[in-house]
């Protein structure tokens, strides 16, 4: 490593805990969210193991209910919402913009500590009675059950602010700190994706905060809002909850799409096809996503008219997502494609996200949703979108920026083996669940009818293959930290600004202020067929 970089310039625990450097905060977020993913993953393995037999396998029903609740809550609030924006985004967004840091470094650190506080509160529920409401906290079950519901609702409230702070920072940074010459249409698409995400984080998260606070007031002071025994309306809770949580689905997927929009052009050495369509569709999705929450409530007793409107808008929001997929595929046309780890994960994303999106059509359409709602079909659908989509995109981004973050290259061979295992394991685990669902197996079931066992066994065995693949990923990434080779500044031939500084970058990101005079994907011209022939002759 030449000279001091952000990792080596200062040393000691204090220099990390009080750092205002967006890169260090990003790295702290990275390890924390990965830890949360590991915990959520262990819980997932326990769920799958329990479901290998139709009756009790290793835990009782109460424990099972707590385990799936915590799995969902940890994966959503502690992993998937913060992972891409707060970990990878924090690290690369200022670099992509040619900035020294985010607009409000102190707010950034505050966001991290709120995350830690929220995480501790949520996990403290483990030792204070657990929580068995499902991550959706539906009333009046959640107002009448025991356990640590109060603590967890407060944790969600705190975590919400952590997310809002990140959003505020990204919007201000994007508006104010772009390098000279970087106009809005020279911004990398990752920035557009983060920007759209930040809008949702700021506008939707307060609604979640208010909702869980109302739940808390009802539980602690008996204020009648949702519980019919106190004169409340339990369905109102569902409206509030999904008014946040549907847009939150896009807090989860837009960052994933944003990563894919960086990786595919670089590994095809081709400008992204339809830059403006992708940029604007992110913002369009962010807008329309506020108007579709009722598609979670087609059988909850809302009016037929409301259901019809929500169904229609849901289909509209599907179009920009489909357009993005077509754009990514078209970007590869006439490219010069290298199948290195980030690109392998990007293609995995394309395939799995396509399945997740297409099965969404079954759920957006009223007649079929009535049959499939709250069955394993839904469990499979959202895992294809969240794990097959966002999490795989996160892996693509992690492999793409790992050399920049830590200055090391990892083993490509190990990465290929792991990616293959993840792909096979994932599909075995979740494809089987579509069939379980359409055959009528409800979700959140501890016991199930024996006729479903074969598919559950397949799903559980698949989860072992998936886990093995992910352990290999952890293995070679961690090994790369202690091992050569060191990463060059631009290992993948990227044209965005982060590749113009050293790996890892110096504390202030760039030794000289970069000036931008071209688009983010203006790759050098590819050799023609004649040149290829000449070269190989």
């Amino acid at each position, binding site marked *: 490593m030449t000279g001091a970089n952000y990792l080596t310039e200062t040393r000691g625990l204090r220099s990390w805990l009080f750092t205002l450097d967006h890169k260090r905060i990003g790295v702290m977020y990275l390890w924390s969210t990965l830890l949360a993913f590991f915990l959520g993953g262990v819980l997932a393995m326990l769920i799958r193991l329990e479901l290998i037999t139709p009756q009790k396998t290793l835990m009782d029903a109460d424990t099972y209910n707590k385990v799936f609740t915590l799995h969902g809550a940890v994966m959503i609030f502690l992993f998937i919402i913060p992972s891409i924006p707060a970990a990878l985004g924090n690290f690369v967004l200022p670099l992509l913009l040619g900035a020294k840091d985010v607009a409000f470094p102190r707010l950034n650190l505050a966001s991290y500590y709120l995350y830690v506080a929220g995480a501790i509160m949520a996990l403290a529920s483990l030792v204070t009675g657990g929580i068995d409401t499902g991550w959706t906290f539906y009333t009046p079950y959640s107002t009448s059950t025991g356990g640590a519901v109060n603590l967890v609702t407060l944790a969600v409230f705190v975590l919400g602010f952590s997310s809002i702070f990140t959003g505020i920072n990204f919007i201000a940074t994007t508006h104010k700190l772009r390098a000279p010459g970087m106009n809005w249409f020279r911004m990398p698409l990752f920035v557009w994706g983060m920007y759209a995400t930040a809008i949702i984080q700021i506008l939707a998260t307060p609604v979640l905060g208010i909702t869980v606070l109302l739940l808390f007031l009802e539980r602690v002071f008996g204020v009648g809002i949702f519980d019919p025994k106190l004169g409340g309306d339990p369905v109102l809770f569902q409206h509030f909850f999904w008014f946040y949580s549907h847009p939150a689905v896009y807090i989860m997927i837009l960052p994933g799409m944003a990563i894919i929009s960086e990786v595919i052009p670089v590994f095809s050495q081709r400008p992204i096809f339809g830059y403006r369509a992708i940029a604007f569709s992110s913002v369009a999705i962010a807008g329309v996503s506020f108007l579709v929450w009722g598609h979670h409530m087609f059988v909850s007793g809302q009016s037929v008219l409301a259901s019809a409107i929500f169904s229609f808008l849901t289909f509209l929001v599907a179009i920009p997502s489909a*357009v993005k997929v077509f754009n990514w595929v078209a970007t*590869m046309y006439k490219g010069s494609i290298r199948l290195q780890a980030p690109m392998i994960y990007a293609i995995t994303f394309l395939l799995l996200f396509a399945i997740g999106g297409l099965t969404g059509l079954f759920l957006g359409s009223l007649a079929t949703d009535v049959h499939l709602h709250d069955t394993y079909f839904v469990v499979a659908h959202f895992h294809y979108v969240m794990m097959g989509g966002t999490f795989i995109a996160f892996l693509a981004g992690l492999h793409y920026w790992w050399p920049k973050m830590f200055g090391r290259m990892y083993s490509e061979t190990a990465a290929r083996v792991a990616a293959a295992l993840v792909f096979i394991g994932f599909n075995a685990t979740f494809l089987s669940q579509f069939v379980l669902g359409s055959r009528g197996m409800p979700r959140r079931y501890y016991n199930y009818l024996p006729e479903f066992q074969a598919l559950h066994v397949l799903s559980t065995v698949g989860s072992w293959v998936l886990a093995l693949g992910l352990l290999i990923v952890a293995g070679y990434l961690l090994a790369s930290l202690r091992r050569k080779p060191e990463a060059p500044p631009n290992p993948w031939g990227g044209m965005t600004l982060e590749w113009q500084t050293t790996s890892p970058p110096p504390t202030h990101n760039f030794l000289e202020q970069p000036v931008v005079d071209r688009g983010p994907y203006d790759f050098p011209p590819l050799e023609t067929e004649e040149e290829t022939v000449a070269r190989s002759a």
Partner: protein
Amino acid sequence: MSRLRELLMPAAASTVARDVDSLFYFLLGLSAFFFLLIAALTAWFVIRYRQGSRVRRGAAPTHNTALELLWSLIPLALVIVIFFWGFHGYISAAVPPADALEIKVVAKKWLWQFEYPNGLRTVNEIRVPVGKPVKLVMISEDVIHSFYVPSFRIKQDVLPSRYTQLWFEVTEPGAHRILCTEYCGRGHSDMLGVIHAVSDEEYRSWLESGGGLGEGMPLVEFGRLLYTRYGCEVCHSLDGSRLEGPSFKGIFGKPVRLSDGRTVTADEDYLRRSILQPQTEVVAGYQPVMPTFQGLLGEREINALIEFIKEQK
């Protein structure tokens, strides 16, 4: 063909199920087409345009308005078709015919109670005529539950705050499963029921005989049947393990400590009171959550349950 269909969905048994299934299979075909299109193009590009391959690359377009309009408008047209198709199915499943047979449903943790117009009450089990529309008017006593019959392709949440409705017309005689699909706690996955679809005559004679459950069965056997049928098993084990309520194992004839400090002997009378007025004598160390079975069980049924509990030594 029908075998193939049953791989993905339970055999269709109601008038609305056919419609739902056609839409389902249409969507499946459409999804398969688009998935294969995306996968094939990706594979083709990755192979043909791999780095260093000998192909004509040149300057490829970075956008193409005609193409982009095309791949936005075709999906748009498709989803509009899907929307109307789905809406049509939903509407016809939402409006019950005026002459439907009406059954009241009360859901509670963790059982389904039914009441027929003539006053006949059943638990977790109903009998309905094939080919006649049936309407369910549903309410919950505690949290939200959801009434789901996979082979009819219908589902409706059951709320504690207001009535919701569901209707169906069965086309296939036989037993059709009821499941709860709104998470409601420990017994959620045990909140099962069954709809027996029978001929009109059979339905009438069953209704007139007042249900006729357990006729000619020995009392203990009948009690065992009721123990599962009425959901006692969700809260009471037979092997001594503690669930929501105390186990039935070895309770008969033993002293029971109550939450008000008294101790009583678990004789037949005590068991009877426990089943009919569970809130008046609450066993120490337990919450008073047991639902009352007053009005749901006839004398023979109560006897059967008591005999069954006596057998659990």
